[in-house]
């Protein structure tokens, strides 16, 4: 007669699973990212403090940023899990050649961080076509390099989601993307148009 086991099984615990259970569930980032990102999006206020201000341009820029932000936030809030990044919806633009970095499902980047990136990206797109062709090529090439890096990090995070090193590298790639956009925006704005 064959015996078919059923019900709860009281097997001895797997030592590997027990070790895994001891791993930390969360890794606190090595540094607070949002402070520096917010400063950049705000137009580097510590440098802009002494500069003159043009209200019409500022109001127009503010309206544009608010509109883009609202649209992106609405789109993202429709999804069920507000803490994880969803695929970034890139609006139709005259220049489709700029492809922002898509951080994978394991990145842990928040909606707030992605919306912040996209607000900066919208201002970057306005300046991109004014750059020299070779500079535009260099930018596109380096965005592709950051994308490759983000993909590699995401694949590694899938294998080792608790790795503080991988999270740090992912944050580094994200910062590099923001830095690229920020440099173009602030340099192209000049002193008087900067808000």
């Amino acid at each position, binding site marked *: 007669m064959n015996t078919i086991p059923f019900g709860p099984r009281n097997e001895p615990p797997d030592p590997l699973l027990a070790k895994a259970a001891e791993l930390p569930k969360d890794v606190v980032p090595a540094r607070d990212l949002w402070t520096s990102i917010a400063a950049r999006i705000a137009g580097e206020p510590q*440098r802009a403090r*002494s*500069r003159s201000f043009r209200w019409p341009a500022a109001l127009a820029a503010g309206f544009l940023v608010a509109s883009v932000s609202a649209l992106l936030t609405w789109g993202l809030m429709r999804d069920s899990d507000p803490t994880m990044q969803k695929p970034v919806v890139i609006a139709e633009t005259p220049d489709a050649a700029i492809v922002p970095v898509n951080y994978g499902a394991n990145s842990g980047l928040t909606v707030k961080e992605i919306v912040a990136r996209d607000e900066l990206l919208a201002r970057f797109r306005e300046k991109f076509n*004014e*750059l*020299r*062709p*070779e*500079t535009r090529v*260099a*930018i596109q*090439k*380096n965005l592709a*390099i*950051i994308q*490759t*890096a983000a993909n*590699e*990090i995401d694949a*590694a995070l899938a*294998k*080792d989601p608790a*790795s503080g*090193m*991988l999270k*740090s*590298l992912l944050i*580094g*790639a994200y*910062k*590099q993307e923001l*830095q*690229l956009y920020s*440099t*173009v925006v*602030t*340099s*192209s704005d*000049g*002193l*008087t148009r900067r808000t």
Partner: protein
Amino acid sequence: MTIRNLVLSAAILAAAAAPAAGAETITKKVTVAPDVTVEVSNVQGSVEVTAWDRNEVQLVAELESNKDELEFEATERMVRIEVDRPHGKYHDDEDDAYLTLHVPRGARLIVDTVSATINVSGVRGEQNLQTVSGEVETQSFDAPVSATAVSGEIAIAGNGGKAVVTTENVSGSAMVSGIRGSYQGEVVSGEIRASIAKAERIEASTVSGEIDISADLAPAARVEMESVSGTVSLKIKPPVNADFDIESFSGSIENCFGPKPRDTSKYTPGSELNFTQGSGGARVEIQTLSGEISICDR
């Protein structure tokens, strides 16, 4: 605070009313405080800044395009110079604007350009220099120096002062030499080559580029370097007294101090290396996803 030159703060719009008549040269000089803040913005061409022993800012601007507007605004504490191109495009190589400035040695300098080169000499105040595709060349003394470029090159020559030097590149290179104290460098696919004396703090990161840093470490120095797929090389001048914490997910670690890296798992290619050289004290942390790490004392 007395603002002696407020009367001079009216903008000078140098857009030529006449049709293109070749380059136009504009000269301007104002008396300022020794630690005046000088802000300069140019589109393409060059910004040359030289320090002198006068409390004056002198500008000689040569504009090739009659579409460009030059704005000059000055108070005792701040001078603001901007070349503005209202119609945007920055492509035409014949439309350069050349700005040549003399500023007090202690001036604080902020320069932004799109494709104009930035060349600074002898300025001892804080410098914040940024370009998209131009090149940046300057010297550091005791005040902080920050240089940013997307595709341009950066060269910073130290003069033994204890400055905090920061470089940020995308595809260009950063060459930093002769500095003392702190350095922070970031690059996406370009390269960083830096030599730092009596280093107290070094932070360097790359995505796929190359970092090559030579330093002698202060007793409590902190060094943090990371790459995704690029190469990281740290050469430390003997005697070396430091605690090392090196980690690689799937890349390689070369260590000429002796200890070999150990595998972090039987099932993954990761490796790590932790050891103390000499009496320790300084702390070196380096990590990579798939790049190469090399640490050595020569």
